[in-house]
């Protein structure tokens, strides 16, 4: 079963992570049971007693948004028109959606291996010599170990696009080494680096188009990897504009800023519950810009609302909510508001996705309860 002799770049290794198929599981298990039985027989020992247990089927997400697949398509499309675009990968080409690009442009695909510092600095060299490097790994690895190398690249004022997938608190299974919930904090201050997190496949395409064709600065594109059953739709005429967001629900009792498919889904569901259970209207706003907001747009988005919430798929410290809070504090004409920031407050838990969101109070039910009680506490208090 563990024959790797046929492995090549067109036939990638299937057993790094994930679960095997049912057929592979049965084959592997039977092979091992047979091996154990033969060994025991040789030793003249009793056969092994096995225990069987039924595996309950897992609910599948129907017609989910797959951001990595959308990114994969956008990358190939942009590369067609941009001969200077080159792709760097840190041994995660499958997970980062790079296979179609590599097949189409093998000469422009650079496999760097598990060496993020080396990769990010190589990108710096490519950019200095006129290429547009697009650098890939999981967000938790890309943003952290080569952080100094991001900064050095930034001081050279070249343009580089960094793409961190597996961003945010989900999936909850791999645990905290892989849950990227501090990348916004550690990259926000890199000079000339714009941080964007799209929430749908359509917004991925817009964000990458912006990164390649509009932005003069470097970009960090933060991508959720899990397939998401989203609870909202972007308006049909939605266009991505630097520092601006878009309302996904209407309401004048509260406004909540968030980004990305995971938290916007919980926020919109929370808004529906607030309306149904408490008659509260909450405006949920998708703000894909993580380290910048346009103050004019922010002012208009707050009209008539004094309860302001932010929801980060990230630690509260250093997240988008903190950035918004600081900007608000500096806007002298915005007064008499209450701000509360939701997000990850402690080392992220490992578990099923629903378990992890609930544990951190970031699921729709918990958010609805918290928002209801916070609005109630501050009602009529205009200080």
């Amino acid at each position, binding site marked *: 079963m563990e024959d790797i002799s046929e492995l090549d770049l067109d036939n990638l290794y299937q057993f790094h992570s994930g679960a095997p198929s049912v057929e592979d599981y049965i084959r592997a298990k039977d092979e091992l049971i047979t091996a154990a039985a033969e060994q025991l027989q040789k*030793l003249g020992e009793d056969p092994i007693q096995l225990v069987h247990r039924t595996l309950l089927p897992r609910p599948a997400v129907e017609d989910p948004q797959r951001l990595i697949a959308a990114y994969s398509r956008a990358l190939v499309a942009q590369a067609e028109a941009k001969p200077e675009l080159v792709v760097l990968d840190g041994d995660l080409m499958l997970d980062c959606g790079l296979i179609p690009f590599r097949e189409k442009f093998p000469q422009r695909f650079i496999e760097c291996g598990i060496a993020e510092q080396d990769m990010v600095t190589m990108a710096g060299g490519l950019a200095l010599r006129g290429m547009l490097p697009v650098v890939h790994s999981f967000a938790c690895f890309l943003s952290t170990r080569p952080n100094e190398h991001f900064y050095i690249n930034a001081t050279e004022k070249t343009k580089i696009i960094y793409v961190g997938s597996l961003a945010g608190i989900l999936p909850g299974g791999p645990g*905290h080494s892989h849950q990227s919930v501090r990348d916004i904090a550690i990259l926000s201050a890199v000079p000339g680096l714009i941080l964007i997190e799209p929430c749908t496949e359509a917004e991925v395409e817009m964000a990458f188009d912006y990164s390649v064709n509009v932005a003069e600065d470097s970009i960090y594109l933060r991508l959720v990897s899990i397939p998401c059953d989203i609870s909202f739709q972007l308006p049909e005429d939605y266009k991505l504009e630097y520092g601006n967001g878009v309302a996904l629900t209407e309401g004048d009792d509260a406004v909540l800023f968030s980004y990305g498919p995971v938290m916007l889904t919980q926020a919109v569901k929370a808004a529906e519950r607030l309306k149904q259970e408490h008659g509260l209207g909450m405006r949920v706003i998708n703000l894909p810009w993580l380290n910048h907001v346009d103050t004019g747009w922010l002012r208009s988005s707050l009209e008539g609302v004094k309860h302001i919430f932010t929801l980060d798929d990230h630690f509260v410290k250093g997240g988008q909510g903190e950035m918004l809070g600081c900007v608000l504090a500096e806007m002298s004409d915005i007064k008499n508001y209450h701000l509360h920031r939701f997000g990850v407050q402690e080392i992220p838990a490992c578990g099923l996705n629903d378990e992890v969101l609930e544990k951190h109070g970031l699921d729709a039910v918990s958010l609805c309860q918290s928002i209801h009680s916070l609005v109630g506490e501050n009602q009529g208090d205009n200080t």
Partner: protein
Amino acid sequence: MELTYIPYKELERIRKLDCRAIERTRLFSTLARINTLYMIMQAGSGHIGSSFSAMDIVSWLYLNEMDLADDPDAHGDIYFSSKGHDAPGYYSVLLGLGRLEFCQLHELRRLNGLPGHPDVITPGIQTNTGSLGTGISKAKGMALAHRLQNKKARIFVLTGDGELQEGQFWESLPSAVHLGLNEITVIIDHNKIQSDTLLSLVNDLGDLEENYLPSDGMLPVVMVMIWRNFPPVLRNAGP
């Protein structure tokens, strides 16, 4: 569908079999693989390749090599995996040794269960790994602490081979030699595969021993060995 696992009493029976160590270890390792597969199927995800390639090594160390205190938390010798992706395999060894509550077999990647990558919150886990290349550095810190506390414990660090692409691995070696930390034994699980494909297609290190780890060269004191087959010869290991 139906999953299959090996109950604790059977693993206990195998551990006590009156036969050669290599046969006992091979059997234990085979059964631990069945339980690893079970855990990963139950969880819906987990690192199979890394767990399976490390299984013989971890089983051998725990059944034959390490000085283990009776209290699961009070180790004589210390083992941890630098790659950390092989956590399900390591858990199944600890479960088979009775060093974790056996009901945890069903709780891989669940809240309050066994995390996807190692965390010190789990009994028997010495350090948090999963981000690659850091293991030897962590072992050096432990070894220096032990020396200051007059403790004598060997530290076994398992690394992947894909992990050798990380710069920190190479940063960590010279000072281990310079400090003479011969209580550290580094074992490279040379399975020749990384996340996507073969090492040789990504960054071919060639013959690791020949090219990088000469026994009479760079690493005369700290033992770095490449796991090849049962049973390993742990030269130089020990304070």
